[in-house]
């Protein structure tokens, strides 16, 4: 005899956050639950809104680079890159090859360090407390030390300039990066062995938080979240910027668009980044690192508007820049990847269980600084 079938159930509202240790920042989810199952999820964002776009209208182009560091504070180089490239495209500036290669190497290293943070956090979300975090942060620390040697800061580098980079890299940059790459290769393999095909990991993540190809495109997802659903869209390959058209690399794509696929895509991307860095290190030649405009800071793009996007670790990082010919922008709109990826969270959480909610959120790899700007 079954009991309770004739009894109606009542949906319950459950608040997660904004002060929740596993929501990766100040982020609130209002879940409508039926027992353990999530019926609806509403994302509440804005707790970290600092008005960066408004501030950009007040500062000049060199100062804005520091603001962009603080948009995506896990992948600083990548978010700086989008802004400086937007200004360069509007001005029609050609960047010296050495500067382009330095940018590529630093951005790819930043991608690995960002994915390592994801790896640690996702491990914790899945339920492996401690070990993945330590493994991930061990690799991050090595990368962070190289960043400090290059730019003088572990985070918030303010290293890219409109027209190049701020100063030349240290003399031992190339050999040191080669050593780092060897260390990273071992580290990535170790991380991979620890988690990727672990039985518990597979059981928890396969078929959870699925999003189909069509939905992924409709929601405007990007980065590993889009590629996890099986769409080979990587701006480095489809719309090559900097010198990405010279490198040979693959775009890993998932099969089912579930949490495991998104995780696996990131693990493979780290290997591809290593591959790109190795090729770039072979191409680095001596030469100028900036055009004169970067040195003296006379950045005044002509009247017009431009939209530039680059592939940041979380996806498509776009900057829409409108200039009125003055030394500060008229309007800057930042299209951040996490902001758009988070829109699909409602769809991913539908029908999932409360126990998986944090993990599904973790698999999107959001940075609240760039969601709220």
């Amino acid at each position, binding site marked *: 005899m079954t009991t309770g079938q004739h009894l109606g159930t009542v949906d319950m509202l459950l608040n997660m956050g904004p002060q929740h240790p596993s929501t990766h920042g100040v982020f609130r989810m209002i879940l409508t639950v039926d027992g353990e199952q999530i019926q609806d999820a509403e994302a509440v964002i804005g707790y970290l809104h600092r*008005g960066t776009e*408004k501030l950009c209208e007040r500062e000049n182009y060199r100062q804005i680079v520091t603001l962009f560091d603080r948009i995506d504070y896990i992948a600083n180089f990548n978010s700086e890159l989008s802004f400086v490239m937007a200004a360069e495209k509007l001005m029609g500036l050609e960047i010296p090859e050495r500067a382009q290669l330095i940018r590529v190497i630093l951005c790819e290293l930043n991608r690995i360090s960002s994915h390592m943070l994801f790896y640690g956090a996702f491990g914790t979300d899945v339920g492996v407390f401690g070990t993945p975090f330590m493994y991930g942060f061990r690799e991050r620390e090595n990368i962070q030390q190289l960043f400090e040697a290059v730019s003088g800061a572990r985070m918030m580098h303010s290293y890219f300039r409109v027209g190049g980079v701020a100063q030349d890299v240290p003399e031992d940059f190339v050999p040191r990066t080669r050593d780092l790459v060897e260390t990273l290769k071992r580290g990535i393999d170790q991380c991979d062995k620890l988690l990727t095909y672990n039985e518990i990991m597979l059981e928890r993540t396969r078929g959870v938080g699925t999003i189909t190809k069509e939905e992924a495109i409709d929601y405007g997802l990007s980065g590993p979240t889009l590629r996890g659903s099986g769409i080979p869209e990587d701006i480095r390959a489809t719309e090559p910027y900097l010198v990405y058209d010279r490198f040979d690399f693959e775009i890993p794509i998932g099969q089912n668009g579930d949490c495991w696929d998104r995780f696996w895509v990131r693990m493979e991307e780290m290997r591809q980044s290593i591959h790109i860095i190795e090729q770039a290190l072979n191409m680095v030649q001596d030469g100028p690192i900036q055009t004169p405009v970067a040195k003296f800071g006379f950045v005044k793009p002509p009247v017009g508007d431009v939209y530039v996007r680059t592939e940041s670790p979380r996806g498509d990082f776009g900057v*829409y820049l409108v200039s009125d010919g003055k030394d500060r922008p008229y*309007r800057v*709109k930042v*299209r951040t990847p996490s902001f*758009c990826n988070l829109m699909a969270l409602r769809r991913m959480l539908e029908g999932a269980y409360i126990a998986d909610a944090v993990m599904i959120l973790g698999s999107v790899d959001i940075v609240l600084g760039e969601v709220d*700007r």
Partner: protein
Amino acid sequence: MPDPEMEALLKELYAPFDAEFGYAVDEVSVLIPRERIAEACSLAKADERLGFDYLRCLAVVEYPDHFQVSYMLYSTGKGHKAMLKAVAPKDDPAFPSVTCVWKGADWHEREGAELFGVTFSGHPDPKHLLLFDEFEGVYPMRKDYPFEEVVEWTDEMSAPWEQGYEK
């Protein structure tokens, strides 16, 4: 770097729309009358040769005498890109919503609406997104909204129970 192929395609598609063509550096940008912008977007998505199934970005810009919304389109299969634009006067800043064309427009429109005070008619959930609810009738991204001045902290600004300490 003009893109003549895309320009020709868009000119053909938007021939009955009374559209103006221009360039955002290397991207074709089409200014569409605002009443027909949602129609123009769904047409661009449905057209087989264009196939603009992906909304890269939606940005609101305030110009001295009008508001402008830019729609950055992209097609995932073909790699095409283009920009659509619509303008509205300052005293009636209303645009049709394109959330029915791309779900991804949802938060962009909510953000634009609260920061600039434009309305997207037909939006399914026109609530505040980034700002808190008390931010009603004030639009921080408008040019007339002042930057906060740096103010010296005085004792009167402290809570009543903290006033009078450390003097």
